């Protein structure tokens, strides 16, 4: 029998600190698979800001920079401008990218910075213990929205993929989810495409990945997948929002 599925080389063979069933782990693997398949590990630099994935530098077999909360796109810009031949990607949470780091992602996208952004939207601040995120759904209870998110005061969950798609420069913007084997395969293709674009076209690409946080949602891993499907996907529709002509 042939080995048909194994840990990608770009993923370090270590145990992660993620909670059981947290889909951060799946997304890590998809990123590593894309890097393996494109054979770019030797020239890739990852950037992970603080958030549950802050220790990503331990989990990838890649050069890595840790970034301050929200600033990964700026850090990645610095790296990419210094090393234009390298492949640079950020791995950011929703609190990170859609709240404190709004200016940085908007402007990196607007400049068409040739980086790949993996945007993990789990509708919550995972690392800090489950506070409301800009992406938290209406009426969703979190530790700082104990009565449920009140959209009249806290506003609506923000759809970053759609918003960034209004900009001219970005080449590829898509939203995927990792709640089922089929969606994971789609997510895989999108993430790979986002890296391919950097390798080929040198443009900005972002993949928003709907992800779970069983711990802070207070659900079992399986129920969390279902909650994602039933609640997040209707609000955050999956699909490509911006596709470059050549790569389509």
């Amino acid at each position: 029998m042939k080995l048909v599925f194994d840990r990608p080389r770009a993923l370090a063979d270590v145990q992660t600190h993620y909670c059981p069933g947290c889909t951060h782990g799946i997304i890590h693997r998809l990123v590593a698979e894309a890097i393996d398949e494109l054979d770019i590990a030797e020239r890739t630099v990852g950037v992970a800001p603080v958030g549950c994935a802050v220790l990503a530098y331990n989990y990838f077999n890649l050069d890595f920079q840790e970034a301050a909360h929200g600033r990964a796109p700026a850090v990645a810009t610095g790296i990419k401008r210094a090393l234009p031949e390298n492949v640079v990607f950020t791995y950011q949470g929703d609190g990170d990218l859609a709240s404190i780091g709004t200016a940085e992602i908007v402007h990196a996208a607007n400049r068409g910075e040739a980086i790949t952004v993996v945007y993990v939207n789990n509708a919550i601040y995972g690392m800090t213990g489950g506070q409301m995120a800009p992406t938290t759904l209406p009426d969703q209870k979190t530790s700082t929205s104990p009565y449920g998110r009140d959209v009249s005061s806290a506003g609506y969950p923000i759809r970053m993929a759609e918003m960034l798609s209004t900009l001219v420069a970005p080449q590829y913007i898509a939203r995927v989810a990792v709640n089922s084997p089929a969606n994971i395969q789609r997510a895989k293709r999108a993430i790979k495409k986002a890296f391919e674009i950097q390798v080929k076209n040198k443009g900005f690409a972002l993949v928003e990945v709907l992800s779970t946080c069983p711990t802070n949602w207070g659900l079992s891993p399986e129920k969390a997948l279902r909650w994602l499907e039933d609640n997040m996907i209707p609000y955050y529709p999956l699909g490509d929002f911006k596709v470059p002509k050549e790569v389509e």
Partner: protein
Amino acid sequence: MSEKLLMKGNEALGEAALQAGCQLYFAYPITPQSELPEYLSRRMPELGRVFLQAESEIAAINMVYGAAGAGARVMTSSSSPGISLKQEGLSYIAAAQLPCVIVNMSRGGPGLGSIQPAQSDYLQATKGGGHGDYHLIVLAPASAQEIVDLTILAFDLADQYRTPVMIMGDGLLGQMMEPVLFPDRTNVELPEKPWATTGRKGDRPKNIIHSLELQSERLEAHNQKLQEKYADIAATQKRSDEYLTEDADVVLVAFGTVARICRSAIDMAREKGIKAGLFRPISLWPFPDEALARLAEKERVFLSVEMNCGQMVDDIKLAVDCRRPVHFFGRVGGIVPSPEEVLAEIEKIMAGRCDA
């Protein structure tokens, strides 16, 4: 280059950075340092280097972090409010031990204040405006030529110690034109940076730039390492200049623009028979306390002259071990003290001293 050029301080700084091998510059506009980005926006594309106007000061300092981590020589510049915004980033850069140069052409504060010259970011720069135990090397030039020399030094020190270095000036130094000579740097070899994140090629272990240490013991060890580095810098990198201090009864202590004002005041005082001298810190951190302590061995009085409310006074007191009187004269809000005012202050002190 060896021809003397008449240049604005801000432009001389830009040219010096280029000659020091600065490959990338990220910044956000703010008066009174705009000639610097404007100059570099012309020059860097000519040289095939990177000029990028960032969306904010915060983005700029984080771009610097990224590029420095990737092993490049990199600089940013701003002025007081913009420097305040960079404090988180500076703490990260210091913690991650990334070499880079930050320019603060400071202005009147607090708040929006004014755009006139000031030195009221002294404490912010020297005591750490960001969180945690860290230091910047802070260099305070007093002329266009010194801007050139210290800018080049700044890049070298940054690499040597893997630490951020700040050039601290003010609008007057930035706007002033003076002759400058650029030293010949064609043979300078830039240090290797085996720690840089340039892609994990072959079987070199991966490089990681980070400052998180969840285990307290490791974070403490990292802090000790930083403190040892700072001790090393403090032991070797204190810089100062003196003018007529030998026989001085009153020693003025002043840096940057104000030091020049004091020089004139001292000349005027000497003409009146008052033995005044000048001690000029060039490195604000590490503060040149030993040189100052030597001056304090003789009985004399000190007068700190600053464009702020006396931020350097404590450093002077500590340097002279509280053994000598330390007076203070300052103007703030963008007002540059005049030599006459300083002279008057000297005379007042000397009069008081005779009384005592």
